[in-house]
């Protein structure tokens, strides 16, 4: 029995030695939600998986339990020669700025925030552009003229999404009524599917027949309620069309996976470029999905309108209101 334990111990030690990181394996630090949060971090994890599958290279991962750990985690990875060291989430910005200064020869990348240090690539997304397309499609698909929005925590990033959604909806139908509810005031608001379903049901009772979720894990409940009532939902972050085929109008994807994958590949290929990379509809950083699950729901007119809006936004002729830079939302 004891020798068995000893053998386990030795084999563990051997495994540890064998898996010691080769130089320049990438590393990633997920934000507090954890890598299986069903949306944001999980999208980053999809990028990690894609990189692993394609290159066979190892990737070191760390999931933050609280923001205070970010500095330690980033510095540990940088100090051990991992590159690039990628931080997911705006909460890690100040830690990244500090660590990037300490390790000027290591490449870093951060998603959702800008860090202006010469060795950091910052990936930020124009979520509101994706939301515009969602609002446009939602208002066109609605028969009642009322559409809904269930947000997660009441923070600026979600409000910006709501504003883009309203703008898109009003572009399709100036008389549209947009119902909106935030789930809560703690991060738990992103992980409460029961409440999400409840909020969606309330909106359905008030006449909404298309509801978008911008609420992470809570959104799973929103889409469930929508499917139960046989109306339409819109997914976000990753492709959620397949969750309830026929009841999810489309999904607005935020390609965190592309950002992560790209930063890994850039360092691997020696083409890493620091600086701010703003990803919107124009460069495929945001997109909306048509697949077998929702093809029947998207009419040719809807597709044409969305494509046209997408082109106009990409070309800069159509400006989607950004509450962070442009002030309070003018659409109500």
């Amino acid at each position, binding site marked *: 029995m004891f020798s068995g*334990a000893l053998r*386990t*111990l030795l084999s*563990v*030690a051997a495994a*540890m030695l064998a898996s010691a990181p080769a130089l320049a394996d990438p590393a990633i630090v997920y934000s507090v939600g*954890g890598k299986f949060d069903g949306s944001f971090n999980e999208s980053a994890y999809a990028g990690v998986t894609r990189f692993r599958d394609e290159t066979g290279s190892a990737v*070191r*991962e*760390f*999931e*933050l*339990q*609280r*923001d*205070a*750990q970010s*500095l*330690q*985690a980033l*510095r*540990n990875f940088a100090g051990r020669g991992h590159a690039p060291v990628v931080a997911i989430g*705006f*909460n890690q910005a100040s830690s990244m700025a*500090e660590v990037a200064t300490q390790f000027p020869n290591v490449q870093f990348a951060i998603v*959702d*925030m800008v860090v202006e240090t010469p060795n950091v690539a910052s990936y930020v997304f124009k979520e509101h552009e994706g939301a515009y397309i969602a609002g446009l499609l939602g208002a066109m698909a609605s028969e009642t003229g009322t559409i809904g929005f269930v947000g997660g*925590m*009441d*923070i*600026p*990033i979600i*409000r910006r999404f709501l504003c883009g959604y309203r703008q898109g909806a009003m572009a399709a139908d100036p008389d549209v009524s947009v119902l909106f509810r935030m789930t*809560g*005031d*703690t*991060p738990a608001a992103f992980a409460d599917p029961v409440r999400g379903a409840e909020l969606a049901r309330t909106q359905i009772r008030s006449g909404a027949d298309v509801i978008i979720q911008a609420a992470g894990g809570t959104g799973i409940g929103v889409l469930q309620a929508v499917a139960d009532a046989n109306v339409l939902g819109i997914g976000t972050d990753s492709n959620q069309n397949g969750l309830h085929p026929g009841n999810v109008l489309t999904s607005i994807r935020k390609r965190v996976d592309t950002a992560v994958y790209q930063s890994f590949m850039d360092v691997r290929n020696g083409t890493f470029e620091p600086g701010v990379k703003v990803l919107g509809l124009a460069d495929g950083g945001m997109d909306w999905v048509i697949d077998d699950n929702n093809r029947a729901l998207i009419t040719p007119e809807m597709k044409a309108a969305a494509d046209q809006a997408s082109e106009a936004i990409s070309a800069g002729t159509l400006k989607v209101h950004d509450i*962070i*830079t442009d002030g309070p939302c003018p659409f109500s």
Partner: protein
Amino acid sequence: MSTGQLPRWVDLGLIPLINLVAAFFVSGLVVILIGESPVEAVQVLIWGSLGFGEGIGFTLFYATNFIFTGLAVAVAFHAGLFNIGGEGQAYIGGLGVAAACLLLDHIVPWWVTMPFAVAGAALMGAAWAFIPGYLQATRGSHVVITTIMFNFIAASLMVYLLVNVIGEAGSMQPETRTFVEGGRLPFLTDIIPGVDFGTAPVNFSLILALLACIGVWLLIWRTRLGYEIRSYGANPDAAVYAGINPVRTIVITMMISGGLAGMMAINEVMGSQHRLLIEFVTGYGFVGIAVALMGRAHPVGIVLAAILFGMLYQGGAELSFEIPAITRDMIVVIQGLVILFAGALEYMFRPTLVRLFASRRAPAAAAG
């Protein structure tokens, strides 16, 4: 109660130790279950929390939070009240700290700002605990229910304020501006010569926390108010019969408790983050309950228990970093086991020990 049946050192030293060993033993079984070596896990845990300057710094940083929230729970405990609203009281306490720092940081050095920040934190925390305390005292609304409700109200209020009122415009993150020098407590690594805590944010608040420990000890065991608090906690009816005003005692105790919890915000807001942001409390208020239980509501015990939980927080982070198979959820399991054994199963080994010591003492008494 059976406190008298055991020598003091057994009650205060041996029983917590046995509980801790039992918790780690079960944790070890869990670690074996997932195919890792428990010996190595313990080594990493201890090395990560105490093995180098920065690790110690982080351990002490977390411990500072736990001392404040642990003391808060302990004070209420002495009056027989179970304040589980430390989370919300600390959150609201952050408002007081931020107000002082935002108003003063450009004008005066940190040691002038600090007393205002401490007062602000304590006042806001106390105010947040006042309502549940008042309702308990006059209406009999149980503080366990009301304080936990107030945690949610605090969360909503803070998000509202940070997003709509005091948050910095044009920022994705709901937070105030970053304080300049006058609103930052010095890091211990900068003020204690010869000590290197690396980048660990352990700061002057630790000294405030230790002062608070002395203050609580004086209050509970050396003042008239403390006597009233303990009397009321031991037997409310007898205390009332003896002329102690129950409403006054409950309200004041809750306010002191809330004030101590509120002061936790100094460590996070003025000591480490240098800005008020959402969700900075992240469970420290709840861990304070375990710390107070484990520390037997005595300041010395609370300091020790706070350091233990600081070690678990810091060592746990290193553990999931060094051994990726031990995920952060595993760390939560280990912390949960410690709380389970030290708090909920506190008296599991007690009857056995009482019997053991009774049998040892009996022959001695017969011989004498």
